[in-house]
């Protein structure tokens, strides 16, 4: 029981962080049709900006300023990079973001070095929030949950309750009509791209010190974010939310399960031959692979994802 509850809490925290990352990616994709390969790089930039700000004026200003800075960088990238690449079609865009990811990583190497930086949790949040079955739940994890849920609510309100949200939603499906009505669609695109990258930046601000801020952090989450977007359905925020929590929980729980593949097959009544290396692998050892297996399964059985609107 204790294990289930604690793992659930851990899984949800991790899932919410993943959602912060994937929401921006899926938003950008649904609006602009761009699969942003550099998305996780903006996550890393968020962490490094926040680290730099925290060394100067402390953590709290960074929580606000770093995502804004990342968003500004994102908007500039869209305005002066992607918009030009866009003229040459989707492949050019894809390659552009792909290259951008490497550029960002090298820039981070040049500025902050190849070694992890000492980006710390602020003292106010370094403690225990509550104790459950004598396992402590760290205050910072609670804070991460709070920020992600707050962001989710704000994003939902922005998209459904405000005028700009209405226009964004309209531009999503009928950009020509929106343009005909006198709205500046390219500027909306720039805002969405900036906004999406700012969300990734925010995830970096709170994820960087919870885990570790190093040049490899973008690559570490880059692929998992794509899994979430594919599983949730390209372009679906709701789907990304469910997929994030799902993957967060899968990764957390699979670590805890010591049963082997043989045991799993035994459950459904199939006896596997003894002695095979593969059959003796435990679910814990398979944990890193499971999200990708899920993605492959989804692509085979439900290509549009859990809640995706379009087929392609």
């Amino acid at each position, binding site marked *: 029981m*204790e*294990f289930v509850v*604690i*793992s659930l809490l*851990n*899984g949800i925290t*991790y899932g919410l962080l993943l959602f912060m990352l994937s929401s921006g990616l899926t938003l950008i994709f649904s609006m602009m049709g761009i699969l942003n390969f550099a998305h996780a790089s903006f996550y890393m930039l968020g962490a490094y900006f926040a680290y730099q700000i925290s060394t100067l004026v402390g953590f709290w200003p960074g929580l606000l300023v770093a995502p804004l800075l990342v968003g500004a960088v994102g908007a500039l990238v869209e305005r002066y990079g992607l918009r030009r690449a866009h003229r040459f079609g989707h492949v050019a865009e894809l390659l552009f973001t792909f290259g951008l990811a490497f550029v960002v990583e090298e820039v981070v*190497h040049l*500025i902050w*070095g*190849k*070694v*992890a930086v*000492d980006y710390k949790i602020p003292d106010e949040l370094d403690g*225990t929030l509550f*104790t459950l079955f*004598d*396992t*402590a*739940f*760290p205050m*910072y*994890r609670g804070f991460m949950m709070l920020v992600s849920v707050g962001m989710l609510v704000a994003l939902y309100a922005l998209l459904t309750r405000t005028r700009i949200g209405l226009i964004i939603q309209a531009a999503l499906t009928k950009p020509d009509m929106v343009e005909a009505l006198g709205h500046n669609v390219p500027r909306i695109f720039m805002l969405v791209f900036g906004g999406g990258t700012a969300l990734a930046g925010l995830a970096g601000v709170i994820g960087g010190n*919870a*885990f*570790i801020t*190093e*040049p*490899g*952090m973008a690559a*570490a989450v880059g692929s998992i974010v794509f899994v979430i977007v594919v599983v949730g359905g390209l372009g679906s925020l709701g789907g990304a939310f469910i997929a994030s929590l799902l993957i967060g929980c899968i*990764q*957390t*729980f699979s*670590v*805890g399960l*010591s049963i082997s593949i043989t045991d799993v097959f035994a459950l459904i009544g199939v006896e596997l031959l003894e002695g095979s290396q593969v059959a003796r692998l435990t679910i*814990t*050892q398979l944990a*890193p692979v499971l999200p990708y297996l899920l993605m492959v399964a989804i692509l085979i059985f439900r290509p549009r994802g859990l809640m995706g609107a379009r087929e392609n």
Partner: protein
Amino acid sequence: MKQRNFRSLAIVAGLALAASSAYAQVKIAYIDPLSGPFANVGEAGLKGFKEAAEILVNQKGGIKGQKLEFVGFDNKGSPQESQIQLKAAIDQGFRYITQGNGSGAAHALIDAVNKWNARNPDKTVLFFNYAAVDPTLTNEKCSFWHFRFDANSEMKMEAITNFLEGDKKMKKVFIIGQDYAHGHQVAKYAKEMLAKKRKDVKVVGDDLHPIGRVKDFAPYIAKIKASGADTVITGNWGNDLSLLVKAAKDAKLNTRFITYYAGGLGTPQAMGASGEGKVLQLTEWHMNVPTKDTEKFALDFNKKYPGVWFYYLRINNMVQMVAKAMNEAKSLDPKEVALALEDMRFKVDTGEVWMRKSDHQAMQPLYISIFAKAGGKNVKYDSEGTGYGWKTLATISQRDSQLPTACIMERP
């Protein structure tokens, strides 16, 4: 920013130096991760080597008047990249290499060095291993061209389990490690030796996780907690250890951690007060082992490189022994140096280091220590500015640390 400028300045200065005295230099290629998840470990090792070469060799006359120099080659922690870097080093004229982080990379290097030396008997290369602890490197896969200066995993686990033999508090053990040669070996020896020495102890968990890729150990901590273990044994190193103990601290996991590598490279900082009385390590040295010269060396090092803490006494031992072998061989030919190095008995601060001839495994005194509040006679220095330091619980003499080897060495 300031540090970066300093570093680039240092590189420029280094290049200028290298250019001016290219002939009068003994160069050793340091093939270890200088980027990626273990970059901090690799950087600390390289600083250790450079400092040791400067203070312990070059300022004392060098090697037959020549300077000893270490040059970094980034293997990104990968075995394939290690072989590429070895090739690059050989092409640049290096005849000596050193490596330590990761037995996977060490295996790749020992294979490549053996092959190279068989094909190029006039341009042989010698491999000094300062930290890769997979026992097979000095047993089944032992090589005349490989010398190990750290105690291997089997020796370390033997010492730890001997220590645990009398510890009646321990009932349930959880073993966690990185999923590669080293992690597998630690788990194997821990289980075998505990089964022999402590039949009453139950191994309640035995997990491997991907090396360098886990950033959130909370799920593993939840599992350890659920298993009811009172002791965790781990061979983890670098961030895989600091993140593990950090997650344990956050969840207030109240088990003991028995480690190989908790003494440095960020782990003491990650534990802070939560590690007091709970974290043990087995090392060849720690700051509170009374020594004559090392204490000053370590203090100077810490002052010179703020944020990096002196950790590897074995690097100092290795640098001095290699320099001595080169001086005694009166030659810089790797084969002559290897012959001078084997069977060498070298007096160091903690006692004697003996490079056993039969398998090229160094034998040295080992210490088991526990993280304790600094202050007083036994814990004179704290570790990484935490206010807590290492207190010796047991000393294993050089003789007691020795284990038989299965090495059948092919000698040139």
